[in-house]
């Protein structure tokens, strides 16, 4: 697992948070996570296959998710379990990962990455576990709260 996997996702996330949502983004810290990590409570998951197989996670607290959804839709929400909060999270995951894999496919022709539709999980004491995948995280600090970007990759055959 090298940083070349996560860099396009971080770049794309920062661009979307700044340009689309108008958030302030402060520099992040990187972490090696191994095969599992504890969620902050709200997680968007997008899978990809092709030359690299793996997952992209966007992990945040419920409060951050509510704030992001409000910024997107202009409405107020009281709970992170609101369908529109989940849908906003899914849409963000979709946009960010879509941008990132376009970037990756342009940089490494022939990888041919493709995305699965996003899934969103929210709840208490969430933990994520990826079998035989190593993951790397970048924690970025935004004006809506900290957001963790995690990418887990298994390098497949090209």
């Amino acid at each position, binding site marked *: 697992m090298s940083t070349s996997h996560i860099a396009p996702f971080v770049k794309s996330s920062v661009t979307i948070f700044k340009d689309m949502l108008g958030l302030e983004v402060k520099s992040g810290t990187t972490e090696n996570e191994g095969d599992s990590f504890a*969620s902050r409570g709200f*997680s968007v*998951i997008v*899978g*990809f*296959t*092709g030359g690299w*197989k*793996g*997952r992209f996670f966007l992990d945040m607290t419920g409060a951050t998710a509510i704030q992001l959804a409000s910024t997107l839709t202009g409405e107020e929400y009281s709970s*992170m*379990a609101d*369908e529109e909060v*989940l*849908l906003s*999270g*899914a849409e963000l995951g979709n946009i960010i990962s879509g941008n990132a894999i376009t970037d990756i496919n342009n940089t490494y022709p022939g990888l041919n990455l*493709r*995305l*699965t*539709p*996003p*899934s*969103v*999980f*929210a*709840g*208490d*004491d*969430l*933990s*994520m*576990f*990826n*079998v*035989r*995948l190593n993951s790397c995280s970048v924690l970025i600090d935004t004006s809506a709260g900290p957001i963790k970007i995690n990418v*887990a990759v*298994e390098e497949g055959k090209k």
Partner: protein
Amino acid sequence: MDIKHINPFISGLLNVSGMLGLGGMQRTGISKREKLQTEHDVNIIIGLVGGLRGNVVFSMHEATACNIASTMMGGMPVSQFDMMPRSAICEMANMIAGNSVSNLEQMGSLVDITPPTLVSGKNMVSLISQVETLVVQFNSKEGPVELNIAIEE
């Protein structure tokens, strides 16, 4: 969602549970998923890309997951849901998805799967895809298992 894409997953699950020696896995029902709440605390997601695009999610209770892991490891008692049962249950999901896509391939649809991810937690709400999700319920000696299938057109 086309119903003909559901059968390969049902037979995939039944095939693999037979292979692993799970006790009397049977389909007990099929329904549309109407609420976001899931009462199951163990969920394994596998993504589908290619001829079909979507997600399948296996959901079950922690106790069922431990029982399945125990059966898969030849009856070794599994009391805690730690790394070993997690790994075993992900492997089962991977085998089922693999079996299902080879069934789909025979129908002329080439589908690639992502590695499994296990999400566990309490009081969970989940959105599996932005499309209608079908839930197929199964029951076995190890406990009930739900198969959520969300395929985009």
